[in-house]
């Protein structure tokens, strides 16, 4: 029998990663009870586990926040939210100073100014950034951290005609304990979604991927179920990486000026353009034309630069360093490159929750920050921190005027019964098998590596049908212990995200972004789609809708 525990708090933060930890830290100024529920341990959980290489969102002297908005709008081909981007751009520099005050090592010149690379990037030693943020969260004396608790669903209460979010349910990933959490407001900071598509390395190294394999899209799934609206999932993110090790390529390209070349040694990057999707598009096209494999041309950079690269990669992608030491470094051979499988990541592209300028979702009482929040691409670490701060402020304001809900015993029993059914089930299928099946379907029918990221309506129809079959099968998956139970729920979340993603891909009948959204039925861009594609879950079906572009000012939901 699973043991149930009840907890009450003013603000519940789901996910103690980048945005979640900072939201908790910022709430210290107010005397509100804060609970951070994290499925791993906030010390090193989430995207920042390995550390970061640079702060990618910063505005160097001589540039204005508006320049940042303009840059991100262009990069996102217009499908962004100016209001959200501006709030990020106006605050990233202050946040950078706050990070330094927390102990982050930032490179400075003789006059004490941060050393930037280009006009949007600050050089740091970011290896310990997550422990620093975790410490800041723990310093909030009113905050309780609940590590090893996986949140599975949001609690809603109906008041008159309005539905609001008032807590969540979850379970311990280590013991057979179920949590029933009542809260006045909830901040979702669960990150984006990896593991939807068959990865570059599907075998032993299946988790050697770019995005955190432990961010499974839980926030999107539970938000959809509760009735919240998502935006722009079809703007998937694909990274250009070193083959096999999935190590970043930017450091080589920018650090030593290496160019992208095909197997004949021809520089091809200039033919296709230098943005991330263009670099990947070019690589895909060269491979399709039979001119692959493609490389970053590093051969002959010299021993000194080679030694620098080998060191630089130890901090952020040690697999690459080990590979170089084993097989010869970049001075002796070019570095092969490839695009990753697609991810859903609101910190890089515009996919995620449809939020107001204050980061409130369409459901009152539910706020979103970081990779789970949509509309504001290119936010990266500093942008996620800004959003954590904004969401914290808005959630605190909201919590002032609401009361804790009555416990909904029936719903709690229903969730516990579902967990117990997984413990009681004997299979025969396992979560791992269904995960592989899901990744294969998405890979082949929803624009994965298999089809060079291309999809069409006929393929998406197959994906839709097969993912629904898997969803049915997932209901009776067996779990022997809490760790297996976690995998069962992670799979169910991913399947829900896949369903929404398929509808988004189908709804945008154009190709606006190469690689990220390559619709083979509609290979051109169309002004008909100068709008957002949003989605909701209604009566078990994903419904998409279009919303007009939000330009400037602030945006509030009209509930």
């Amino acid at each position, binding site marked *: 029998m699973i043991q149930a525990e009840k907890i009450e708090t003013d603000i519940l933060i789901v996910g103690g990663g980048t945005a979640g930890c900072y939201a908790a830290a910022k709430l210290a100024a107010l005397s509100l009870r804060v609970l951070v529920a994290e499925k791993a341990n906030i*010390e090193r959980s989430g995207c920042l586990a390995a550390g970061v290489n640079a702060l990618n969102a910063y505005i160097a002297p001589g540039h204005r926040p508006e320049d940042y908005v303009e840059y991100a709008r262009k990069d996102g081909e217009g499908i962004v939210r100016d209001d959200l981007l501006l709030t990020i751009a106006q605050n990233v520099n202050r946040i950078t100073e706050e990070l330094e005050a927390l102990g982050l090592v930032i490179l400075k010149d003789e006059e004490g100014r941060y050393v930037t690379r280009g006009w949007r990037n600050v050089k*740091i030693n970011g290896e310990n950034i997550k422990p620093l943020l975790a410490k800041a969260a723990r310093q909030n004396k009113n905050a309780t951290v609940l590590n090893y608790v996986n949140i599975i669903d949001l609690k809603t209460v109906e008041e008159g005609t309005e539905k609001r979010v008032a807590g969540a349910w979850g379970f311990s990933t280590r013991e057979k304990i179920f949590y029933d959490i009542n809260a006045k407001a909830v901040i979702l900071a669960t990150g984006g979604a990896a593991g939807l598509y068959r990865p570059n*390395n599907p075998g032993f190294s299946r*988790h050697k991927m770019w995005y955190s394999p432990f961010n499974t899209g839980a926030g999107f799934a539970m938000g959809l179920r509760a009735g919240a609206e998502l935006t722009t999932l079809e703007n998937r993110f694909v990274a250009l990486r070193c083959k096999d090790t999935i190590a970043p390529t930017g450091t080589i390209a920018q650090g030593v000026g290496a160019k992208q070349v095909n197997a004949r040694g021809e520089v091809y990057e200039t033919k296709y353009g230098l943005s991330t999707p263009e670099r990947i598009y070019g690589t895909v096209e060269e491979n399709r034309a039979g001119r692959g494999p493609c490389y970053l041309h590093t051969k002959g950079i010299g021993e000194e630069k080679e030694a*620098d690269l080998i*060191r630089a990669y*130890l901090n952020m992608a040690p697999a690459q*360093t080990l590979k170089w*030491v084993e*097989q010869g470094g970049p001075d002796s051979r070019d570095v092969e490159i490839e695009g990753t499988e697609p991810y859903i990541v609101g910190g890089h592209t515009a996919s995620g929750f449809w939020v107001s300028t204050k980061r409130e979702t369409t459901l009152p009482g539910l706020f979103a920050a970081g990779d789970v929040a949509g509309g504001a691409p290119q936010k990266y670490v500093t942008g996620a921190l800004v959003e954590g701060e904004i969401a914290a402020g808005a959630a605190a304001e909201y919590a002032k005027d609401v009361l804790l809900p009555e416990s909904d015993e029936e719903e709690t029993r229903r969730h516990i019964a579902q967990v117990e059914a997984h413990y009681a089930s004997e299979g025969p299928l396992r979560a791992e098998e269904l995960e592989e099946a899901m990744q294969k379907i998405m890979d082949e029918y929803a624009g994965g590596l298999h089809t060079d990221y291309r999809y069409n309506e006929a393929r998406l129809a197959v994906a839709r049908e097969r993912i629904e079959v898997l969803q049915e099968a997932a209901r009776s998956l067996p779990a022997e212990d809490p760790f297996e139970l976690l995998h069962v729920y992670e799979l169910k979340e991913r399947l829900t995200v896949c369903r929404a993603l398929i509808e988004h891909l189908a709804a945008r009948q154009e190709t606006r972004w190469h690689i990220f959204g390559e619709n083979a039925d509609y290979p051109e861009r169309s002004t008909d789609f100068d709008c957002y594609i949003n989605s909701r879950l209604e009566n078990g079906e994903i419904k998409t809708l279009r919303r007009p572009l939000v330009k400037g000012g602030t945006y509030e939901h009209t509930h």
Partner: protein
Amino acid sequence: MSIRIDKPRCIGCGACTNACPGGLLIMQEKKAHMRSLRDCWGCTACMKVCPAEAITYFLGADVGGRGSQMTLAREGVIYRWKIQSPGGARSEILIDRRNSNKY
């Protein structure tokens, strides 16, 4: 790629179990235990908190690994990475954590 726990070296402090972003490490009979080799992200968070140099990093053969291994010793602000090839050749790379990245 993944990691292995060097059980004789492990002093059972539990630090790594709190560092893994996937919750993959647990304590078993007073030693760290890796629950699932194939689920490792290769982030090295566990190695950075281990006081006993008891965690070994290796590349899976599917990503080109040939049997080399890497361990990490923390010496104050210095990280000493030790790489050993299958033939027995050893090399070391020192990283000063006070310095920012060069690139």
